[in-house]
């Protein structure tokens, strides 16, 4: 027993010292950014995909008047995460629809306070949301369908077949043009759907990987095709990108502008409020093209030293927004430039992989 007491006598001080050292080396973990403040000014919502595979996306909100940013808005309001790969977000009246791609769902929020109203499920890899009228919306899904969503019940009512990997959609009159980008492969078609019957009425053959579509001031459809291949990884069978002007009624290609190289692929396409200037990403820059131009521009409107991932246009103040995800595993940057002359305005940090802008 004496030996045991001796042992305890010798061990205890050392134990206490070790525990004290370790305790002192610990400090209280810091929590995340500040709590969200009520946002009443014009604002920009940024969808952040979140870390690939094992993370959750997030929503950042930028107050255009005060210049303040609140990250992880949804989590801070609701106390749980959105899910893996937040792809896009659209607003219908006072209800927000957040498309969470890899979680196969749409999170529905009340825009006044961003509180969750519920989830819409029964979707496979949803990508983008397009309001058709007051009662329904289309959601493009990578199971090669467009889901027809009732805005009255927030239920998926049916699925309409498309080409492979449907992505962006644009509505002109009563026709919806669904760009089939190819998903994990390659497609080069546009599915034309009748917005009344929700049926595919035509399939339009374009160039590989149609990635962006807008309607100009004259109601013509502009489609940007990236072409086969990846930037920075040239292969023998790569193809050039194209910018097409298409008559939405006859589907006739009115103009076809070919990009000069097979190893450089344009991406994203937005148009200003007047419908007389389009912007797209090409070669680490943002280029401007006016519908009356006879050739594609040779120099960028905006040059960027990093990588441009997302592009948005704010028609309230004629501003271009683009994102740089840095290395895709840390918070990304948003840059604001004037659309009229490309001059830089400011920049701010958001969440991981900022991918989509929603302007309110």
């Amino acid at each position, binding site marked *: 027993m004496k*030996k*045991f007491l*001796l*042992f305890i006598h*010798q*061990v205890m001080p*050392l*134990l206490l010292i*070790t525990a004290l*050292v*370790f305790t002192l*080396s*610990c400090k209280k*973990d810091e929590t*995340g950014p500040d709590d969200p403040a009520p946002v009443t000014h014009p604002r920009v919502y940024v969808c952040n995909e*979140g*870390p690939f*595979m*094992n*993370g*959750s996306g997030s929503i950042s909100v930028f107050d255009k008047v005060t210049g303040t940013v609140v990250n992880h808005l949804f989590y801070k309001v609701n106390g*749980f*995460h*959105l*899910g*893996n*790969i937040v792809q896009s977000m659209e607003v219908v009246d006072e209800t927000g629809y957040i498309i969470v791609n*890899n*979680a*196969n*769902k749409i999170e529905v929020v009340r825009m006044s306070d961003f509180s969750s109203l519920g989830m819409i499920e029964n979707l*496979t*890899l949803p990508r983008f949301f397009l309001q058709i009228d007051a009662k329904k919306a289309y959601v493009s899904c*990578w*199971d090669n369908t467009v889901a027809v969503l009732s805005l009255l019940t927030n239920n998926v009512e049916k699925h309409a077949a498309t080409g492979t990997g449907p992505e962006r959609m644009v509505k002109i009159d009563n026709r919806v043009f669904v760009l089939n980008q190819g998903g*994990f492969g390659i497609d080069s078609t546009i599915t034309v759907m009748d917005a009344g019957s929700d049926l595919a009425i035509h399939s339009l053959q374009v160039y590989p990987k149609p990635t962006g579509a807008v309607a100009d001031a004259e109601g013509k459809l502009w489609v940007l095709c990236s072409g086969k291949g*990846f*930037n*920075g*990884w040239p292969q023998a069978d790569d193809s050039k990108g194209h910018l097409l002007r298409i008559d939405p009624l006859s589907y006739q290609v009115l103009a076809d502008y070919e990009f000069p190289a097979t190893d450089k692929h344009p991406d994203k396409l937005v148009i200003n409020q007047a419908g007389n200037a389009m912007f797209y990403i090409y070669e*680490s820059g943002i280029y401007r093209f006016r519908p009356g131009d006879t050739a594609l521009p040779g120099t960028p409107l905006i040059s960027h*030293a*990093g*990588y441009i*991932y997302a592009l948005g246009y704010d028609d309230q103040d004629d501003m271009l927004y683009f994102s*740089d*995800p*840095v*290395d*895709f*595993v*840390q*918070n990304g*940057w948003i840059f604001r430039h004037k659309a009229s002359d490309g001059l830089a305005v400011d920049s701010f*940090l958001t969440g*991981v992989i900022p991918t989509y802008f929603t302007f309110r």
Partner: protein
Amino acid sequence: MIRIPGGLFTTRPAAGFGLVMHRLLRFCWFAALVMAVPDAVKAQAVLPDSAIALKGIEVSGNKRFFLMPGMQADTIDSLVMRSSVAASLAGLLGQHSLAYIRDYGQGNLSSISLRGTASSHTSLNWMGFELNAPGSGMSDMSILPLFLFGNVRLVNGFVMVPGMLPAGGTVYLDPPSMSSGRIAASAGFSLGSFSDFRQYVSVYGRKEGSACRVAYLHQHADNDFPYTYRGVAYRRGNAVSTGRALMVNTEHRSGRHTFYTAAWLQDAGREVPPSVSAADLNANRRDEAMRAVLRWKRPGVRNALSAGVAAFHEYLHYTEKAGDTLLLLDSRIRNRSVQADFGLDRKLGFAGLLLHARVSGSAVTVNTGDFGGSHRRKSGGWGLTLFKPLGRKDWKAGLTLRQDWVKGMFVPPAPSAGIEGSIAAWQLKAQVTRNFRIPSMNDVYWVPGGNPGLKPERGWNYQAGIHWFPLKHEESGLALGVDAYYTLVDQWISWIPDGKGVWTAENVQKVEICGCEPRLEGRWRSGSFGLKMNLSASLSSSTYLTKTGPYDNSRGKQLIYTPRKQLKGALQATFGSFVFAYTHNFTGKIFTVRDNSSFLDAWNTGSALFRQTLPISRTGSAELQFEIKNCWDESYEAVAFYPMPGRAFLFTLIYKYQ
């Protein structure tokens, strides 16, 4: 009523060979019974209340072994190995070492981080040959069953493993002992929570100079543990794991020559559950491996020689589906490698110098559609080490020069120097080593983004330790020490997007790692009562010193999934043949993104183990073991959005014949 064949339990057989055969038959009958049980038991194990958990817990001790003076080397305590028969290597190291295991959940992918480094900075070595997959440069430690191995050692410092001189460390998987008498066998099973069922059989025999051990393991687990997400209770889905492994070890002595062979077949199939933030992609993974090793040794008074050759064939098939039909991913990777080495230990004729020389070579082929086909890598290397006993007792110094060669790549020479010895009750050691790591085949050949122009990572590692032994008696002992290290790795390989958005492997970063590992160990024994405890901590800072681009905010930030703080404690009490052990692990905050803006909270887990050994006869005994894992039912994640199981139980019964 079932009649037991032959009345083996009632009739006393004749002595001699008959007795041996009798006991062997009795063992075989028991083994057959154990192997026949699974389905019935599995069905009973579905309910969580009847559940049972994993792996054993006991106090681990530091046993010294080394090639190079000044290194930190830990051997997992043999008692821990004995009670970890159901555990994987990931489970063992996560609980009984200062390694951090990036664990995606029970039965799923687990990789290691040693001393604040990435998984690819730890070498995994079996019988002298590299086990890490040549494609990824790392291993999934959750599919390496401890039942197959005799011992596990961790080494931080200079080693002669091919392909790298790892900044993190080296994990050695030693073969089981081949000196267990004439004949020995064991069979048993484990039954645990979440329909976890494992069966084990091993048979060992020795005749004159030859010995053979055959070990077989079968495992199945549903891994459907409960967790809560968004306030809703779920059960983990798509998480079933199955596996079987067979290992045959032989030893043959002929004169001064000893030959060892080992053959290892393994087949592990798993469903891969998604993160809780994602939809189920019906992901599946299958790992198959065939490995064979031949090793020869010829010890001698002046010269000792050794040589070995190994051939590994590994196959990995991974699929993901959206829904039932849309195949998103179908990846198949085949690795074939041949490795060989030759070593010489020679006592030089002056100043007591000892020379260790080694040459090695390997040819590795990785065939996968992800590379656009097949790629082969040939490499080799040599190393020369001089050991010098110094004037004082126990003091020794070593000096090494190592040079590796890889076709098409310049590998820097890797010198190392170390010294260690004792002064009174103090033990001192120090080592400086140049580290390097050759880029993995994925880094070089992956399409897109692989970079054939990559250079090996290179760096310097400095480490020193001081240990104090104020009490060193037969019945009691006390040791207190601290090991400190500093590593600077240049040309650190990171996958980053280039200006065009393609993820590309680049030698872009410099990483600084520094830390210390304080340890406290004590033991006390009186009669049949024994008490052992240890407490160890890891305080490690691993930070990027450079930026990957103008907007990178990771400079000065901690590497992701490398905890700054870990604390592990263990207490073991024995009373005769009864053992109680408790281990407690604290893991500090872990960052999940490179600018450290998101993190996982710190967590504590504790595990308790009760074991009783029951002698059944003069040559047979049964070991009953009951474990409670995560006994405080801590809710935590080791990888973001991958929940870990709560409290779980494991019951193990092993019959041993010797």
